[in-house]
């Protein structure tokens, strides 16, 4: 069955909340009902029919074509099916997602995968700041699932992350994995200053060093650990480059000794 497709007709004159356009909320709805779904974030009402041309199809496979950075909360709280977006998206894409697969064929705004619980998010472009991170007032960020960013990520990727896996194939900004509670964050390229700042537990792997290592991490030496090899086998289907990084010898640092000190940062070494 062909996918349920939303093609942008008009550029919206306000930011839109696309969180209703997920499989579990659209399944069973008719074309007319879908076109009446409201997406506005201001007092001025905007419904799906005002912005998109809808081509009916299987609600388990949703395609959004021609999106832009004003389209917020794409795939929010989705738990089944697949959403594919051609173009960039705004804030909080895949926030609180619990299952299914969200593919963004462009760049994602801040707080992508925020508080994610399960499923897979793939971002072909770059991710802005706070990837997987908590909103203000929340005590934990991402707590499950897998996020793959093919490009670079902004500051505070994996902030307060609790569980799950984030793979950034490009570079990461400052404070990658800051305040991590647990989980796994892999940065294929170089990380900005102070990765793992105040992390309690969890694993950060940095392929190409970082701008400034936090002073409260201690060096445990060079290792080729089986756990990293196992992680490589498991990440192989999602990211070949990060699997290759995990198979390299890695320098292990543990910290952050300013807090619990049971986290670890692995830095890739040349063979």
């Amino acid at each position: 069955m062909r996918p349920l497709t939303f093609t942008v007709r008009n550029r919206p004159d306000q930011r839109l909340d696309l969180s209703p356009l997920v499989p579990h909320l659209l399944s069973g709805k008719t074309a007319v009902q879908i076109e009446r779904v409201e997406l506005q974030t201001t007092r001025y009402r905007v419904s799906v029919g005002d912005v998109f041309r809808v081509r009916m199809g299987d609600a388990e496979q949703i395609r959004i074509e021609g999106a832009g950075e004003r389209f917020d909360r794409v795939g929010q709280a989705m738990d089944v099916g697949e959403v594919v977006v051609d173009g960039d998206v705004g804030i909080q894409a895949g926030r609180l997602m619990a299952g299914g697969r969200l593919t963004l064929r462009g760049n994602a705004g801040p707080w992508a995968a925020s508080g994610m619980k399960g499923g897979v998010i793939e971002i072909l472009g770059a991710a802005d700041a706070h990837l997987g991170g908590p909103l203000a007032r929340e005590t934990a960020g991402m707590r499950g699932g897998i996020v793959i960013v093919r490009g670079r990520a902004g500051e505070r990727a994996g902030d307060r992350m609790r569980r799950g896996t984030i793979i950034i194939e490009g570079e990461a900004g400052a404070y990658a994995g800051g305040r991590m509670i647990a989980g796994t964050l892999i940065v294929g390229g170089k990380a900005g200053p102070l990765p793992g700042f105040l992390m309690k537990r969890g694993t950060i792997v940095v392929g190409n060093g970082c701008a400034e290592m936090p002073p409260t991490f201690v060096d445990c030496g060079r290792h080729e650990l089986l756990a990293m090899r196992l992680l490589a086998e498991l990440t192989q289907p999602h990211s070949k480059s990060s699997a290759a990084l995990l198979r390299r010898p890695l320098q292990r640092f543990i910290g952050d000794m300013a807090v619990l000190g049971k986290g670890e940062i692995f830095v890739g070494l040349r063979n």
Partner: protein
Amino acid sequence: MRVLTVKGVRIDNTFAEAFGMRATGVTITADTPRWARQAALTMTGFATSVIGCGCEAGIDRELSIKETSDGRPGVRVLLFGVSTAELQKQLTARVAQCVLTSPGSACYAGIEGEEALRLGNALRYFGDGWQISKRFGAKHFWRIPVMDGEFVCEATTALTKKAVGGGNLIIIGRSSKATRAAAEAAAAAIAGVPDVIAPFPGGIARSGSKVGSKYKNVQASTNDAYCPTLRGAVKTSLDADSNSVLEIVIDGLTSDAVAAAMRAGIAAIIRLGPKRGASRISAGNYGGKLGPHHYHLRNLLP
């Protein structure tokens, strides 16, 4: 009793009687096949019979680097027990004492199923607070720091209640050498059957037992009907020219696996023939009233 002979080997018109058991499995990997095998052998060494060892365990098969989750050579071990609680106890003790301690080892779930047994979840406390939990998708592992690096252990393995224990072949020959050759051939054939183990040494038992004894504290005693030195003194099951008997006991994850193993064993014995091997194959049962699984030898011929 109707006599059936296949290529000179007499097949008794009888059946093996087997019982329902609980079973679990683990996959042990190491840096080399030798060390994976060593950990598995140590773990399954004293595990021939549930009566004296708490569980019956053995190596199902060796796994290539393509078949294991960490890309290292491995061995799949199966454990069979009479209750979930005892199986859990044996699993924890054996992995803790024999696998955790073995150089370079790692331990993963060896079977899939609905019910879980604790594996790394029970061993993690050895890490004294330095153990690390790692989840990836549905997989959950524990990393326990040890003196050669880390012991990686999956959090749980599964339990099956559909396992069968006590499938058997009684192999009878004219000399100990010939009977041993037949039993070795059968054990080698059974080792190639997936999802089964033969828990006795090298897969072979020489001291088959009967239920009960003249001594009140002994649950099982020598199977005098098959002891060649007692022929004449007791009600024997042996012919005049039978001088040696060996038994193969088979536990399997499913009844079909046990039947396949018995079929493979019988075929191997018949292939060897009565001159170099066994002259007769029989099986042990308790009259058919105790165990729900009956494997008639005549249905398992090659």
